[in-house]
C-alpha cells in the first residue's frame, strides 16, 4: 500500500513539474512577441507616454520573473487577467464555456468508450474474419477524415431531415434532457472520430494477450472463445486499454475545438479560436493553459490507473 502511495506521489510530482514547465513555456512564448502587449493594445499611433502608462498599469515594466510569478499566483487564485478584446475578466468567460466543453466531452465518452470496447472485443474474437476486416477498414477511413467532414455529413444526413438541430446552442439554464438532445450531433461526430482509434487499440491489446501460452491452455481446457476473452484476456488487457481511453479523452479535449466551430457550440475551443483571430493574447494563454492542464491530467490518470491494474508493476516500484 505504501508503495502505491509513494508511486502516486511521484507521478503527481512529475505532473506538477510538467505543468510548471508548460506555464513557463506559455508565458515565455508571449515574451518572444515582437513589441509588447501595450503596443498591441494601443495600436501604431500611440504616443510613448500612453504606452508607458499602460505598461505601468499592466505591470509590464516589472522584470520578467516577477511578472511570471504574479501571473501564476493570480491563476492559482482563479484570476486569469483581463481579455484585451472584450475588456472583461477572463475567468468569467472561461468558466461557463469550460462547463459546456466538459459536458460535451463527458457525453461523448459515455457513448464512445463502451461502444469501442465492445467493437474491439468483437473484432478480436472474429479476427481476420469479415467483421474484423470491415471494421478495420472503416476505422482506418474514419481516422483519416477531418472532423469537420464527419460533422457536415452528419448535419446533411440527420439535421436536414429534421431529426436533430444542426446548431448546438445551449446555456446554463437548458434542462438536461434537452441538452442531451441538442448536443447529440456534436457528440456523435466526436464519437465517430475517437471510436475508431480506441477500437483498433483495444483489438491490438487483446490480440497481443491472446498469443500468450495461458490462453492456449484455456483453449485446450475447452473454454468457450467468448469466455476466454472476457474472463482470461480482458483483465490483463485493462492496462493498455485504460491508457488508450485516457489518451483519447485527452485527444477529445482538443478535438472539440473544430467540432465546436462546426456546430456553433459555445465552448472553450471557440473562445480560443476567437482569441487567436483577434490576437487576444491573455485569452489564448489562459485557454491553452486550461487545455494543456486537462491533457496532462488525463495522461497522469492513465499512468496511475494502468499501474494499479497491474500487480507486477506495483510490487517492483
Amino acid at each position, binding site marked *: 500500500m505504501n508503495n502505491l502511495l509513494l508511486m502516486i506521489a511521484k507521478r503527481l510530482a512529475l505532473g506538477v513539474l*510538467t505543468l510548471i*514547465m*508548460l506555464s513557463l*513555456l*506559455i508565458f515565455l*512564448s*508571449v515574451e*518572444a*512577441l515582437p513589441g509588447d502587449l501595450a503596443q498591441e493594445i494601443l495600436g501604431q499611433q500611440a504616443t510613448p507616454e500612453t504606452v508607458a502608462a499602460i505598461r505601468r498599469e499592466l505591470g509590464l515594466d516589472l522584470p520578467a520573473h516577477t511578472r511570471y510569478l504574479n501571473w501564476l499566483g493570480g491563476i492559482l487564485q482563479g484570476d486569469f487577467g483581463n481579455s484585451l478584446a472584450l475588456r472583461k475578466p477572463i475567468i468569467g468567460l472561461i468558466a461557463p464555456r469550460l462547463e459546456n466543453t466538459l459536458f460535451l466531452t463527458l457525453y461523448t465518452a459515455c457513448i464512445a468508450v463502451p461502444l469501442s470496447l465492445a467493437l474491439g472485443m468483437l473484432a478480436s474474437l472474429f479476427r*481476420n474474419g469479415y467483421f474484423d476486416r470491415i471494421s478495420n*477498414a472503416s476505422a*482506418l*477511413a474514419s*481516422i*483519416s*477524415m*477531418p*472532423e*469537420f*467532414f464527419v460533422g*457536415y*455529413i452528419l*448535419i*446533411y*444526413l*440527420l*439535421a*436536414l*431531415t429534421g431529426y436533430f438541430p*444542426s446548431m448546438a446552442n445551449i446555456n446554463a439554464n437548458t434542462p438536461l434532457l434537452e441538452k442531451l438532445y441538442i448536443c447529440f450531433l456534436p457528440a456523435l461526430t466526436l464519437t465517430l472520430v475517437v471510436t475508431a482509434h480506441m477500437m483498433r487499440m483495444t483489438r491490438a491489446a487483446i490480440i497481443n494477450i491472446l498469443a500468450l501460452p495461458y490462453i492456449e491452455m484455456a483453449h485446450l481446457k475447452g473454454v468457450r472463445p467468448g469466455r476466454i476473452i472476457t474472463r482470461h484476456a480482458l483483465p490483463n488487457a485493462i492496462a493498455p486499454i485504460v491508457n488508450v481511453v485516457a489518451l483519447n479523452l*485527452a*485527444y477529445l*479535449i*482538443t478535438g472539440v*475545438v*473544430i467540432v465546436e*466551430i*462546426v456546430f456553433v457550440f459555445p465552448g472553450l475551443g471557440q473562445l*480560443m*479560436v476567437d*482569441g*487567436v*483571430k483577434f*490576437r487576444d*493574447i491573455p485569452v*489564448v*494563454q489562459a*485557454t*491553452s493553459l486550461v*487545455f*494543456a492542464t486537462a*491533457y*496532462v491530467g488525463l*495522461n497522469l490518470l492513465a499512468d496511475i490507473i494502468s499501474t494499479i491494474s497491474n500487480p507486477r508493476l506495483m510490487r517492483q516500484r
Partner: protein
Amino acid sequence: MIILNFLLWVVVVACGALAVGYVFREILVRIVGQEIAKIVRTLPLTASLGIFVILIYIICAVFAPVIAPYGEADILAGSFEPWSSTYWLGTDNLGRDVFSRLIYGARNTVGIAFLVTSLAFLIGTLLGIYAALKSGVVDQVLSRIVDVLMAIPSLIFSLLMLTIFGTSALSLVLVIATIDSTRVFRIARAVALNIVQLDYIEAAKLRGEGSFFLIRREILPNAMAPLAAEFGLRFCFVFLMISALSFMGLGLQPPTADWGSMVRDNAELISFGDITPLIPAGAIAFLTIAVNFVVDWLLHRASGLKE
C-alpha cells in the same frame, strides 16, 4: 430515406473504388518490368487504390493551371451559382469557380503539407539520430525539451504559436514543422538507438568519421524503411492539421485556394441541402485515406507478418 440513399452511395463508391484498384493493379502489372511486377501482384486492392488516388492528386497539383478552366482567384459570376456546364461545381460565396479552386487546392494545400512534413523530417531525423549517436548530455537535453513540447496537445500549441507569430504562410510552415519534428525526433531516436550499437558504426567511428558522415552514410540508409512509413503517417497528420487550421480561418490566407477554407466559406450551403462544400472536405479525406492504405501495406510488408 436520405440516410438509406446515403448508405447505398457509400456501398456503391466502396465497390467502385475496389474495382478501380483492381483495374489499376492489372494495368500496373502490364506496364512495369518483371521484377517490380512481382511485388505489384501482391498489392492488396486497398493499397493499389491508394497509389492510384495519390497519382491523381499529384497530376492535379502539377498541372493545375492546365486542368483548371479558370484562375483560382478570378471572380467570374454571382455568388453561389448552381452547378452548370460553364461552372461545373457552381461558384462560391464570392463568385469564384469552385472546380478550378478545387484543382488549385491540390497544389496549395497538399503542397504546403508536403513541404511542412519534409521540413519536420529534416529537423527531426537529424536531431534524433544525432541524440542517439552522442547520447549522454546532448541526448538528455534534447529529449527533455521534446518531452515538454509534446506535453501540449499539438493543435493547442500551434494555435498559441500562431497568435504570437501571426497567420502568414511562412509562420504556418515553421510552426507546424517545429511541432511535428518533436514526434519525428522520438521515432528517429528510437530507430537510431538500435543501429548505433552495431559493430559497423563502431568501426566507422574508429576510422575517425565525423558525426554528419555517420548520420548520412551509415545510419540513415538503415533507418530508411521505418522512417518512410512514418513519413506517410506524419503527412496525414500535418495535412489534417493544416486543413483544420484553414477551416478555422487561421491557415492559408485568401485568395489562395485551399480546401479547408473552401469548406468554411461555403458551409452555409449545406443547410440548403447543397453538397458542394462537402466536396473539398471529401478531397481531404480521400487523400488521407489513400495514404493510410498505402502506409498500412508498407508496414505490413516491412513487419513480414502474413498472419
